[in-house]
């Protein structure tokens, strides 16, 4: 059976889990934006301390977070290598034929790697401590101001909900089609990457046809249950801000203010 890890949720009772999803989304965005303002290692250290504290409070085992990193380790290494070789710098550390590695390049590579790692960890904390439904609700309310310029906030959120709902159904179906094809002699395991990719075609075609049929059925079912977009719609579960959300917001804001001060100090005194 195939395993799904998209939007994985780690169920636990913690301060972070109980935070309003909108606040979590906002704090994560702020954290990510400001990661890109930091350009000194003292700042990264501070960001790391904050992340570590949040992880500790959230009760998510660090093992879980690292598992998420494994999938993108290639991207991190790739970016780092690009930065090492393609940053023009004055202090040359190493030179051989066309290769030229500068001190600036090494620093840049380290910065990018740290940024990406913390960015991924930060956003995984959001998805690990928020149920998919809460997350879509938060996204809907975050996009609400954009409704004025005709961004279909409600529709985007509804599509996300339906996509999440159908992931297990479609995976189950894929599994069935795969077994049916294997029973008739299809081979998915041997051969090179091209042969393997080609063997997926007879899998994807029936899967897509069935997905379209499901979409049609679902549209009919939604319509017969009076769905007409978000006109006059209410929600059973309403989101309410609590005191803890304010507390979380203040912590993040003071952290960001701290980084700004540090950035300034670093610039003035020339610390990297």
């Amino acid at each position, binding site marked *: 059976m195939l395993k799904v890890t998209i939007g994985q949720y780690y169920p636990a009772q913690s301060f972070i889990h109980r935070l309003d999803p909108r606040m979590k989304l906002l704090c994560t965005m702020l954290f990510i934006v400001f990661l890109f303002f930091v350009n000194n290692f003292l700042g990264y250290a501070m960001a790391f301390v904050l992340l570590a504290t949040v992880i500790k409070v959230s009760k998510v085992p660090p093992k879980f977070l690292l598992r998420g990193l494994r999938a993108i380790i290639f991207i991190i290494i790739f970016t780092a290598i690009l930065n090492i070789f393609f940053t023009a710098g004055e202090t040359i550390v190493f030179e051989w034929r066309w290769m030229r590695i500068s001190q600036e390049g090494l620093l840049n590579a380290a910065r990018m790697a740290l940024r990406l790692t913390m960015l991924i960890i930060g956003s995984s904390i959001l998805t690990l401590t928020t149920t998919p439904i809460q997350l879509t609700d938060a996204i809907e309310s975050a996009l609400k101001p954009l409704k004025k310029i005709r961004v279909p906030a409600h529709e985007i959120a509804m599509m996300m909900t339906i996509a999440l709902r159908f992931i*297990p159904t479609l995976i189950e179906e894929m599994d069935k089609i795969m077994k049916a094809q294997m029973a008739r002699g299809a081979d998915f395991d041997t051969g090179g990457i091209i042969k393997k990719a080609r063997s997926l075609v007879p899998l994807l075609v029936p899967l897509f046809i069935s997905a379209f049929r*499901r979409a049609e059925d*679902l549209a*009919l079912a*939604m319509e017969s*249950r009076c769905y*007409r977009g978000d006109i006059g719609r*209410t929600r*059973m579960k309403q989101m309410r801000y609590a005191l803890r959300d304010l507390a979380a917001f203040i912590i993040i804001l003071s952290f960001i203010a701290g980084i700004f001060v540090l950035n300034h100090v670093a610039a003035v005194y020339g610390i990297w």
Partner: protein
Amino acid sequence: MEFIVKAENLVYKYVAPSSSDENSAGDTTDAGVPLLALNGINVGIKKGEFVAVLGHNGSGKSTFAKHINCLLQPTSGMVWVNGISTADEETIWDIRQSVGMVFQNPDNQIIATIVEEDVAFGPENLGIPPSEIRKRVDEALATVGMSEFAGNPPHHLSGGQKQRVAIAGILAMRPDIIVLDESTAMLDPNGRKEVMKVVKQLNEEEGITIVFITHYMDEAALADRVIVVADGKIVIEGTPAEVFSQIDELKAIGLDVPQAAEIAHKLRNHGINLPQGVVTPQHLVEELEKCLLK
């Protein structure tokens, strides 16, 4: 007598998509010829009635069901629900609130990732206040016996359980009529029993009008009235006892009869004195006991 659903000379014409892939030779000339899925249906369903609509594939029974909920509009003729014409654009949402539909595939009608959120979907669309939705969702789940699964994701439920969730989702909208469009066709025998039990209970205890579309004779035998549809027309209509005693007519349009009715029919032909209108196994057993004791 006031009818809650009424159809008069209902005709629905549709143009079949060219099916050159499936039936290649000689059929190409037929592609695009309009077909009459419904050809003059006249029917009245009373409040609180349990009506089964029988018919084989392509008989038009599902097309009829979709007219009750304004999912389809008649080509000609009229359909009224609660005295309101379904052709009126303004009242479509009122009709859809009072007519709930349960479809065939349990997987394709559940919208949310959590059972209770799915049940809340209908009332949310109606703009009901959150506290009232909460109350309705809890009640609806209790009625169909799914309260303990309220917080579960739907994909771990059995087919029968999923259909019960779908029924709960409709109950939470407080409908007068529930239309089940072959809702048991994809279920195993246990799932069918579960759904049938819930539907029976809703009809008897809550007084909800049921339109039950099926091709299982044994399910139709439990209804107050059976309507048999073939080629877009109503061919036989009456109580299960009346309908299922017309065994030859049913067989002529390619339908089976409930097993009990068929056994009774054959026994009668062999000279055993059984009354007309035996359609359920329990009734057959009672009548046979009477015969043996004589």
